[in-house]
């Protein structure tokens, strides 16, 4: 009984220093690890799509080997993007109200529509137009359950005439063009959810959507690089070094722009030194020391920046195996760094009182809805979906129609 009581007291006692509003003295932040994962996953979707757009819209031929993988990556992550949001709601059974009776001044309400638009009108449609010819071909030669899946996905459109294929290519191109601003909108909106909260000096920032978009592009390219290398390793293929070097180049430039804008944000905060500055200093020096200085700045930005930057200068002098390892390490570290960045934004914004007179603590639990086990499950889920999608739509055993996003038909368009 005594032990129970002691545990209860330890559990209930809020960990804070200084003065926090009484309602802020809750044991855990209102938005926990799930809300860290939500912008992380959404960012990966947007970034992976931008990566794919480099091939289709910007005609970067070197990246063709990763076009479809990028699109499937975007889809598998997008399918999981709303799960963390849903699980953290007090009343998940009422979630449909966001779509049924949206409150139009709320960033969160509009996100539902932006998400639906991106999933239904951009990603699924573009994938369908891109895959249609292949699906028709595969449906002819595949039997069993897979055959049924391919036949179902053709939606009964089996026309393989020149005009039909030209329309596929044209539609794919148009959707890609529409998709770029949509991807920006999707993740910019997530940034706006935080950036629009003027009550919180850590969040309320006009640069927040821009920072979210740029870090999304960085993380998306890093994820595609990671996935491509893992997939080739699993399949015992040789890595297309031209493709990998190009990805590393885009990753480097995206990282430079992202780091520059984040630095601008910090310079502005330090120079302006507004009301909440002293509490923000405490955050950097104490509360977020490891995740911000080591996670986001060193692991996620500085080291990859040096590795990828040196490759831009000395690419020809670095042997291929070392280059591969350097790029893989950079991509992995960026993925960790961007996760740390989301943590710093979401959790960091809740580690100080809005009275600006005190700070709270947060220790991530193992179990529970907001625990790291749940987070790990939610972060693994898109990879499981991606494995299924790759088996179905990027299988080596499937005959290829030699169809690329920039084939002759597309060129005519």
């Amino acid at each position, binding site marked *: 009984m005594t032990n129970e009581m002691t545990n209860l007291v330890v559990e*209930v006692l*809020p960990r804070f220093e200084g*003065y*926090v*509003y*009484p*309602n*802020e*003295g*809750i044991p855990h932040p*209102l*938005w926990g690890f799930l809300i860290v994962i939500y912008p992380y996953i959404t960012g990966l979707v947007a970034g992976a799509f931008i990566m794919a757009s480099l091939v289709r819209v910007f005609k970067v031929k070197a990246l063709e080997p990763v076009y479809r993988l990028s699109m499937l990556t975007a889809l598998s992550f997008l399918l999981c993007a709303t799960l963390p*949001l849903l699980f*953290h*709601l*007090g*009343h*998940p059974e*009422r*979630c449909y*109200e*966001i779509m049924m*009776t*949206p*409150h139009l*001044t*709320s*960033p*969160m*309400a509009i996100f*539902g529509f932006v998400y639906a638009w991106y999933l239904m009108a951009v990603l699924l449609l573009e994938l369908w137009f891109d895959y249609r010819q292949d699906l028709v071909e595969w449906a002819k030669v595949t039997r069993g359950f897979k055959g049924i899946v391919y036949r179902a996905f053709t939606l009964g459109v089996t026309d393989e005439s020149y005009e039909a294929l030209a329309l596929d290519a044209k539609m794919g191109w148009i959707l890609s063009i529409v998709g770029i601003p949509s991807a920006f909108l999707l993740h910019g909106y997530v940034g706006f*959810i935080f950036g*629009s*909260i*003027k*009550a*919180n000096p850590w*969040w309320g920032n006009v640069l927040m959507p821009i920072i979210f978009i740029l870090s999304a592009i960085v993380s998306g390219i890093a994820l595609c690089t990671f996935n491509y290398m893992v997939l080739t390793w699993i399949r015992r293929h040789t890595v297309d070094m031209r493709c990998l070097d190009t990805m590393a180049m885009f990753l480097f430039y995206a990282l430079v722009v992202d780091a520059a804008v984040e630095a601008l944000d910090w310079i502005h905060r330090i120079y302006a030194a507004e009301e909440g500055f002293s509490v923000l200093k405490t955050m950097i020096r104490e509360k977020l020391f490891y995740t911000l200085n080591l996670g986001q700045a060193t692991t996620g930005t500085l080291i990859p920046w040096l590795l990828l930057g040196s490759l831009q200068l000395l690419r020809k002098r670095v042997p291929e195996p070392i280059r591969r390892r350097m790029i893989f390490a950079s991509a992995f570290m960026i993925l960790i760094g961007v996760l740390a960045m989301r943590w710093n934004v979401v959790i960091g*914004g*809740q580690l100080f*009182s*809005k*009275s*600006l*007179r005190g700070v709270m603590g947060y220790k991530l639990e193992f179990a529970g809805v907001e625990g790291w086990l749940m987070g790990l499950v939610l972060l693994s889920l898109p990879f499981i979906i991606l494995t299924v999608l790759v088996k179905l739509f990027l299988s080596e055993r499937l005959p290829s129609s030699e169809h690329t996003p920039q084939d002759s038909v597309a060129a005519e368009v």
Partner: protein
Amino acid sequence: MKARLNRRSAITRLGGAIAGLFTLSAARAAKAAVQQMFVASGAPKDYDPSKHKWLMCIDVNRCIGCGLCVEACKKENGVPEGPYFRTWIERYIITKPEPGSGKTRGETLVDSPNGGMHGFPPPPVPKDQVEHSFFVPKLCNLCEHSPCVQVCPVGATFDAPDGAVLIDPKYCIGCGFCIQACPYGCRFLSPVTHTAEKCTLCYHRITRGLKPACVEICPTQARIFGDLKNAGPDDPIRKFYENNRVQVLKPHLGTEPRVLYAGLDKEVR
């Protein structure tokens, strides 16, 4: 018969789509109006919110920090035990500056143990070092431009025409966005209902001609409550206005609170 797309049919279809969009927004407005009728506010059916404009004023110099208002609020509204408060009292202790430091004042110590519900312990500094000490009651600031209403994704939080900011508990999805958006820390996620909760000015009482519980119980009349649309010349709220210069919390955020304070210090946020 094959339908042909020509200019006429295109214009007809476009017109139809635009008409459809307009109908959709009208339907939404109608639905919102119906919801407004059935919203769970706790007011009696004959109460007309458009005939009132509620206002709360607080005289900081009168508050003695007894905590009765916090206790009354918890009991009246069934506020859960623990760190959940619809109203609370903060104690500010501003110490004297060190001699020769060149500062106007020393350190500012703020506390609110259990929301001030059971009063306050003795000051943590000796009395002769205290320059100023005062209590500040806090509650929902009844903002004209409420950030919490603005961000609610489903419209469960809304501005009532009488100035109260209310939450429909049957509609709230418990996302916590309003809690993040409130600059004053006035909202919490109820561990019982899993919805957002806050001060409603005791809406079930004021709509029946009673005062909010905290105002009713305050022994020093530090909280003054009134109806601006029905205030006579001798109404306490008018007197308060005449006798004091008033201030609001965090005015730089542009929320235009309608909880007005007299005797506020710059340290109060």
